[in-house]
């Protein structure tokens, strides 16, 4: 574990840019922290914090000079790996069928992967990438677009030293400190004499970049202070979720009266799934031009909250808001475990903050747990 001064962040960005990476990081825009291309450390949201609670998000000018003093951006990293709209191919009609035209000729579809360096990935979002890897890089079915972009990433995690009002990574075991899966991990430490970072590498390419930076070995008390900040952050999560036997409880209680209660509040607007860093569902649309001779196949982000999502011959399988909300929660916290061996929720809390009516997944899961009909094994 080493220490770098705040001013070294520019050297870090330059080291990445000189290797051909586009540096994507947090920046304040229109009242929110968004993830976009940043050129230097001055683009970071210096001194800005966010306050998050169900259905409310506000930026505040903090009383510090931290670059990563906010908790979590509403924008998750999935949009860089799973673009919201992706043209899969273009084709022209022929006398005996159709011919795909864009394999070599059209440079715009599908997009070529870029060397992207993500600056400021939170530990919960790092776990979200791990979960998406399982979905898109599975043994049997690999998404070639995801794979190509994933291989071009450089991941800089910034560990959390402050929990937000809707955070519950402590319950999901995904934060506030990242354990592995990054190239470089930073912990920003606030000190009266000026903020600094603890820095560590998690991969050979991370170590190689780190060697270029002006750094010194971290003092034992600095490492201890970071550990204490992690413990403090874990203890101050805005939300908690009891995960013990949660998979069984949710799977066994599809008719729990609480589903009706939450369906009365749910707008089925799909915001929760759109902001979720692990929701990966998409729909595929075939689009013709007016002549009917040219066709495009387009993949778009979809959501289990739409009627079309479960539409088959005869109608939508999940016609009621109750069935759609239940589908989403039981997938995140129950059937995802069957599919991928882990919860599909990383505890980032975005679905709570960005639900227009503040529906809280931790509160709903807790309500199902009360009066549940599951026979649990004795401890």
């Amino acid at each position, binding site marked *: 574990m080493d220490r770098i001064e705040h001013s070294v962040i520019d050297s870090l960005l330059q080291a990445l840019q000189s290797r051909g990476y586009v540096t994507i990081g947090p920046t304040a825009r229109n009242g929110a922290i968004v993830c976009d291309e940043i050129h230097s450390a001055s683009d970071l949201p210096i001194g800005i914090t966010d306050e998050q609670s169900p259905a409310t998000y506000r930026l505040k000018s903090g009383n510090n000079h931290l670059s990563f003093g906010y908790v979590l951006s509403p924008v998750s990293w999935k949009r860089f790996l799973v673009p919201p709209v992706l043209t899969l191919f273009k084709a022209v009609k022929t006398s005996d069928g159709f011919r795909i035209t864009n394999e070599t000729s059209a440079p715009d579809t599908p997009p070529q992967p870029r060397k992207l360096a993500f600056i400021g990935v939170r530990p919960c979002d790092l776990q979200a990438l791990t979960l998406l890897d399982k979905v898109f890089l599975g043994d049997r079915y690999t998404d070639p677009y995801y794979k190509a972009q994933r291989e071009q990433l450089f991941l800089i995690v910034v560990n959390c030293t402050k929990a937000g009002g809707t955070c519950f990574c402590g319950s999901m075991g995904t934060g506030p400190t990242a354990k592995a899966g990054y190239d470089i991990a930073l912990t920003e430490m606030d000190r009266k004499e000026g903020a600094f970072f603890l820095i560590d590498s998690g991969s050979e390419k991370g170590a190689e970049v780190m060697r270029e930076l002006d750094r010194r070995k971290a003092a034992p008390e600095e490492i201890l202070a970071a550990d204490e900040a992690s413990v403090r952050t874990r203890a101050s999560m805005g939300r908690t979720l009891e995960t013990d036997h949660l998979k069984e409880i949710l799977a066994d209680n599809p008719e729990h009266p609480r589903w009706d209660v939450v369906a009365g509040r749910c707008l089925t607007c799909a915001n929760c799934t759109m902001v979720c860093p692990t929701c990966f569902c998409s729909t595929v649309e075939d689009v013709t031009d007016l*002549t009917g001779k040219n066709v495009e196949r387009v993949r778009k982000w979809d959501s289990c909250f739409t009627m079309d999502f479960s539409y088959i011959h005869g109608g939508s399988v999940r016609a009621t808001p109750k069935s759609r909300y239940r589908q989403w929660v039981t997938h995140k916290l129950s059937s995802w475990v069957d599919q991928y061996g882990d919860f599909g929720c990383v505890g980032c809390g975005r679905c709570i903050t960005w639900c*227009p009516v503040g529906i809280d997944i931790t509160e709903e899961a807790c309500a199902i747990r009360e009066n549940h009909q599951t026979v649990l094994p004795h401890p």
Partner: protein
Amino acid sequence: MKQKRKPKLAVWKFASCDGCQLSLLDCEDQLLDVTAEVDIANFPEASRAVAKGPYDLSLVEGSITTPHDAERIHQVRRSSKFLVTIGACATAGGIQALRNFKDVKSFTSLVYASPSYLEVLAKSTPIADHVFVDFQLRGCPINKLQLLEVVNAFLNGRKPNIPGYSVCMECKRKGIICGLVSHGPPCLGPVTQAGCDALCPSYHRGCFGCYGPKETPNTASISEWWMKQGMSDGELLRLFRGFNAYAEAFRKESEAHEE
């Protein structure tokens, strides 16, 4: 080989501002493609030349507000193979349906010197209340790309890609940060059908609900939440009483906030 007959397209106007049918003329880049594929047989905004029916595709703009129009729409239906309504007037009664919440005579007596000359119905109603409609294209005004998609789907014998989900889906795909959560209400996006490509939120304005209620709209829940945030019954009533005031979900919600 014999040239295939081009499908005949007709555009009909009822009580409306003409903005939706002008969307067809606004398809500048694609207009020649459209005329190459269809025979524009009746489109008074574009040409006085009128070709006789029957028509393969009729685009109907406007709502039914007079006894004469209530008759005329049946003629349109009879002469049309497919009838597609375009815009908030034709699909929900339009802004003129605000009169549906009052006695129309209280307006005509104020506006006209001799209201007895007027033949006007008590309510402004959508086309689908009068005749069978094959497809309804929402919006005030409609999105020209969606209009092209509907014409296109009709020409190619496929279902139009016109989703019934919320405006929020379009906002999130575009990477727009939710103004409702980050700045405060109102924004009707979560209860409004997509189609405008999140036009107002793209310019930091809340959604006005121009495309009408989305599929399974929960207006009661969002109203209850906003009342907890301090919005009044009067504010909620005005919010839901816009261009789609007479669309069922918005109508019921505004009526729930009447004094």
